[in-house]
Structure formats: structure tokens, C-alpha cells
């Protein structure tokens, strides 16, 4: 651990704002990179499930 | 009309036929030829209006301005390169012909370049003088534009072939080909700037020549493939 306290790590001798902003934006983008395809996958699965229900309902 | 009924036609003759046909179509409408030149003229007029009439400032920016405007003019005319052939069905005829589509497309591209980029390079000294480009840069400007517009037209042909079947493909076309045009712009501006400074621009012109030669060899293949994709879609 280079920093002596969490407050020092947060401040980073005046550069903290830039560093943490960059990491926060990157983290958001990385989460989206995983979450968006998963959401798409789930949407497609829901469509298939609904389609199967429709077919069951249509058949006598 | 094309060579399907005349398989004995040599490759060169097929190329020439396509070249003449496209060239005649272009020459038939004066507007198609005059438009890019007029566009060039008008955008060059905008720069002094936007930047102020100070001759030293204008002269300093002239190489970059002239090259950027040439790039935009070439972009503007690229959009229509294969459009009329696509609409009237002659592109399908070309694809069915006995000769490789790449060679036939190259004929069209060269005709297109002669009617646009070539003319633009020839008249460019006029606009360069209006912006106060020092006279030692004029010759290099013409040579760099001759080679450069050939590159721009070839890249434009790929973009045009990829987007010809898409409605409202114009904006998309600029997104596709502007990044690919970056080296041409850099080499061209550097050559003219070097000449204005009194240096030797031949390195930059040689690079541009190499680029043009490489593209002449490879780009027609991409254009041919892209045209077939557009026809299938």
C-alpha cells in the first residue's frame, strides 16, 4: 500500500479527481459491456418463452 | 450491350468501353462536371469570410484549406459514382459480363476521376492564388492533387460501392471513407507546405505515388466484391 490513509488515496496529492473520474467512467463502460449483451439475451429468451406459450394456447 | 454477347473482347477493350461509356454519360451533363468545381470555389470563398482577410494568415493556412476542400469535394461526388448504374440496371449487366467486375469498375472509376479530381487539380492554382499561396507551392499543389484525388476517388469508389444499395447512404459514406482518407490528406498537405517553405517535397510526393499505385492494384478487387454484395442485398 503506497498511501497512508484512505483519505490520502482519495486525494492523491491533488490528482484524485482525475484518476477516480477516469476509473469510474471506465467501470461504468465495462459493466455495460457485459450487461448489454446479457439483457439482449434475456429479451430474446422472453420472446421465445412467450412464443411457446402462444403455440400451446393455439393448439386445441 | 456489354460483352456477354462478345466474349472475344479483350480485357483492355472491355475496360476502355466501360471507361468511354461512363465518361460520355458524365460529359453529357455539364452540371455533374461543374458541380464539384463550383463547390470547391464556394468553400474556398468561405474561409476568408470566416477567418478574416489577413493575407499572411490565409497564405499560412492555404495548403491545408485547399486540401481539405478538395477532400470534401471528392467526398461529395463519390456518393453518386455507381448510383445511376445501380438504378438503371447496368450494374447487373456488368456483373454478368464475361470480364472481371473489378476491371470494368476500374474503368468507371478512372473516367470518374478524369471528370472530377483531374479537372479539380488543373484549376486548383486559380483558387490557390486567391488564398495567397506562395507561387513556389503551385506546381507541387497540382501534382499532389493529381495523385491525391486519384487516391480519394479510389477510396470513394469502395465507399460508394458499399452504400449504393442503401437509401440515404450519403452521410454513412462520409463516415466510412473520411478515416481512410487521412493519409492522403497528410501527405498532400505536407508536400505543399514543404514546397512553400522552400524544401524538397519529393518524399511526400513519392509516398503519395506509392499509395496511389498500391490502391490502383488492390482497390478494384474490393470495389468488385462490394458491388456484388450490393447487388445481392
Amino acid at each position: 500500500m503506497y498511501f497512508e490513509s484512505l483519505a490520502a488515496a482519495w486525494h492523491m496529492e491533488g490528482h484524485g479527481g482525475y484518476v477516480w473520474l477516469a476509473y469510474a467512467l471506465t467501470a461504468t463502460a465495462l459493466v455495460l459491456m457485459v450487461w448489454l449483451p446479457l439483457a439482449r439475451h434475456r429479451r430474446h429468451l422472453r420472446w421465445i418463452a412467450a412464443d411457446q406459450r402462444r403455440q400451446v394456447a393455439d393448439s386445441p | 450491350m456489354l460483352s456477354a454477347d462478345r466474349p472475344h473482347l479483350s480485357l483492355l477493350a472491355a475496360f476502355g468501353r466501360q471507361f468511354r461509356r461512363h465518361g460520355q454519360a458524365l460529359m453529357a451533363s455539364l452540371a455533374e462536371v461543374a458541380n464539384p468545381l463550383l463547390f470547391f470555389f464556394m468553400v474556398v470563398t468561405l474561409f476568408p469570410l470566416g477567418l478574416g482577410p489577413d493575407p499572411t494568415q490565409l497564405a499560412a493556412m492555404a495548403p491545408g484549406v485547399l486540401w481539405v476542400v478538395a477532400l470534401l469535394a471528392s467526398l461529395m461526388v463519390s456518393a453518386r459514382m455507381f448510383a445511376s448504374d445501380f438504378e438503371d440496371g447496368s450494374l447487373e449487366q456488368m456483373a454478368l459480363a464475361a470480364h472481371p467486375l473489378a476491371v470494368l469498375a476500374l474503368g468507371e472509376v478512372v473516367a470518374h476521376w478524369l471528370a472530377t479530381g483531374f479537372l479539380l487539380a488543373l484549376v486548383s492554382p486559380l483558387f490557390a492564388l486567391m488564398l495567397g499561396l506562395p507561387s513556389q507551392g503551385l506546381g507541387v499543389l497540382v501534382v499532389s492533387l493529381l495523385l491525391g484525388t486519384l487516391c480519394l476517388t479510389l477510396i470513394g469508389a469502395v465507399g460508394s460501392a458499399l452504400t449504393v444499395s442503401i437509401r440515404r447512404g450519403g452521410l454513412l459514406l462520409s463516415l466510412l471513407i473520411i478515416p481512410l482518407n487521412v493519409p492522403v490528406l497528410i501527405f498532400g498537405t505536407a508536400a505543399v507546405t514543404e514546397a512553400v517553405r522552400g524544401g524538397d517535397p519529393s518524399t511526400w510526393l513519392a509516398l503519395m505515388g506509392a499509395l496511389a499505385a498500391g490502391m490502383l492494384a488492390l482497390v478494384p478487387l474490393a470495389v468488385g466484391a462490394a458491388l456484388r454484395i450490393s447487388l445481392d442485398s
Partner: protein
Amino acid sequence: MQRMWTFIHKLGSPPWFFAFSGTLVRWLLPVTVLLLALGACWGLLVAPPDFRQGNSYRIIYIHVPAAVVALAGYYVMAIAGAISLIWRIKMADVAMRAAAPVGAVLTGIALVTGAIWGKPTWGAWWVWDARITSMLILFFLYLGVVALFEAYENKAAAAKACAVLTLVGTVNIPIIYKSVDWWYSLHQPASLKFTGESAIDASMLYPLLVMIAAFYLLFAVSVLLYMRAELVWQHRNASWLRQRLGTS
């Protein structure tokens, strides 16, 4: 050799790929998250500060991995495009289509973190530095592929058109990078010379390597997830998929 070919043929079969990629992602995702957390903590809290730039250099641990993987991603896309054009393997189409948005996001990360890093280093949010400019052009190249794919109604033709475009782009990328380098050295103002990364100390290098590995894995995971989502949609009426979904 024989084994490898069977493996490649299996990759081209949607049901097999669906099962295989599911297992793969289940293993890769935790490893990626672990590496990302490790690399970020190491780079942010443990590594010593740069003697010239102080703590702002810590942005390197996300900026450089994003840039490296973004560039590599374009080549992945081009290889997938070539495979799809030459052997007409549908899975390659899907891979190429999946890699484009992921690569664009990574390029965006590299640009934004570069801008944030530039403010304390150069005193400006944006500087027309050779690398930043090249990254910007790469960003446009990615956007072009995404936009071209979306513009075509016929998605099979869209994939082929994107393959041609990425191949043209791949041939051009080295020329673009080199020309931007020359352009920059022609105009380089002395005050902007940036010598931070000439020799990097091991204590700074290891977290960087961890992060680069993590970003590569994340790229792979994201592309695989996109491919799976796309596969489900393409085979939404296929019986193999419905059977698999019904039992699970």
C-alpha cells in the same frame, strides 16, 4: 492436426458453440472480474507514483489496456471478416458483428481516459497528439462498421459488406498510424514532448500487465455474450434451442 480441424468444424455448429461458449463464459467471467479488481487495486493503491507526473499516471492502468485491446479488436474483426468471406462460416459473421460495438466502446474508453489524463499532464483536455489522433481515427473506423451493418436491411449482405470494409481498413491502419506519426513530428511543439513511458519500472509494469490481460478477457467475454444473444435470436425457431431451453 485432425483434432484441431474437428474442433474448428464444431465451432461452426451453432448447438455445439452455444453449449461450449456457455461453459467458457461461466469460467472466464469470474476470472476477468478477479483480475480487473486485482489490477485496479494494485495500480491505484500499491504501485508507487511516477516521479514526473505524480499520481495522475495511474490512469495508465485503464488507458493503455483499453487502447491495446481496441487495436487488437479491429484485427480480430478483420480475421473474422476474412473467414466469413472465404469459408462462408456463419459464426464468423456473428463474431465480427459482435466485436464492432465492443471495440468501439474500448476505443471510447481510451479516448476519454486519455483526455482526463491530459488535463493534469498537459493542462488541456484535448491535445492533438499522434496517439490520441490515431485512436480517434480508429474510433471512426469502428463506428463506420457498426453504422454500415445497421444500414443494411439484409443482414447476410450487411455482414459481407462489413467484412470488405474491415479488410480495407486493416490494410489502411498501418498507413494511417504511420502517416499520423509523421504529421505529428512535422508539427511537434517542443513543450508537448511526452517522455513518461520510455522506461517503466517493474513495480509499475506488473499491474499494467494484469490489466491488459483482464481487458483481453473482458473483450472475449463480451464478444461471446453478444454472439450467444445473437445465436438465440437467429435460431429462435430451431428445435435444438427450444429443447435446451425447455429442459434447463
